[in-house]
């Protein structure tokens, strides 16, 4: 695996980890703090602390 591929793969991993954190926060709060609430997918329930 060349360096470019390695960096890209690490960046993707980091992005996915950040987005997983976003999903966990979204699943365990009432709504988005801004004045718009996008439709939450059903699978978001997976990230709830209490099932």
């Amino acid at each position, binding site marked *: 695996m060349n360096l470019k591929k390695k960096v890209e793969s690490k960046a*993707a991993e980091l992005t*996915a980890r950040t987005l997983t954190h*976003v999903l966990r926060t979204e699943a365990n*709060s009432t709504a988005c703090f801004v004045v718009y609430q996008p439709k939450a997918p059903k699978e978001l329930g997976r990230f709830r602390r209490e099932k």
Partner: protein
Amino acid sequence: MDRLLSELTDWLIHNRAISSDDKELYEYAIYSFIISTVPLVIFLVISGIIGMFPEGFLIIMPFMVIRKFGGGYHAKHAYICMIMSTGLLAGCLYVVSHFSGSRLIPLFLLVSGISIAINSPIDHENKRLTEQEKMRYQRTTIVLVLAACFVSVVMNVMGYNRYSSCVALGVILTGVLQLPVIIRKIMR
């Protein structure tokens, strides 16, 4: 926007960072991240440009945290949200720069705090809460409102009237944005 979301999630799938079954879930995460971050950054940049960064920060922090659990009014379209969120927060900066010593602010803080504690959480049709979650988030909201009120009072006592008003305005704005939903509920 849809193309951007799709391309980003495809990139994550291609790099095996997420599974292809989770595409919709991660598109939602990216979208939520963007619509939450853009107004926040715009507002903080505007605050910085006009030399009111600490004020802007002290308004948005309680607003962001309390609204996250308390919920409230949500616009039908994302672009209306962007304009409204930034406009309302900029309006708060105007209030701080012109009326920060006003005695009406503590009064509005008290009324908003009570209203938020009673009516929270207000969920949205796009993200319904279970009864258990409602109870939990109401408790969290009450603790957060009390903490914000405490910080505002302490700042006032210490003579930081301007900063005290900023924290109060963050709470008041959350209360104001719950009003349309509360009124709609009463009218039904």
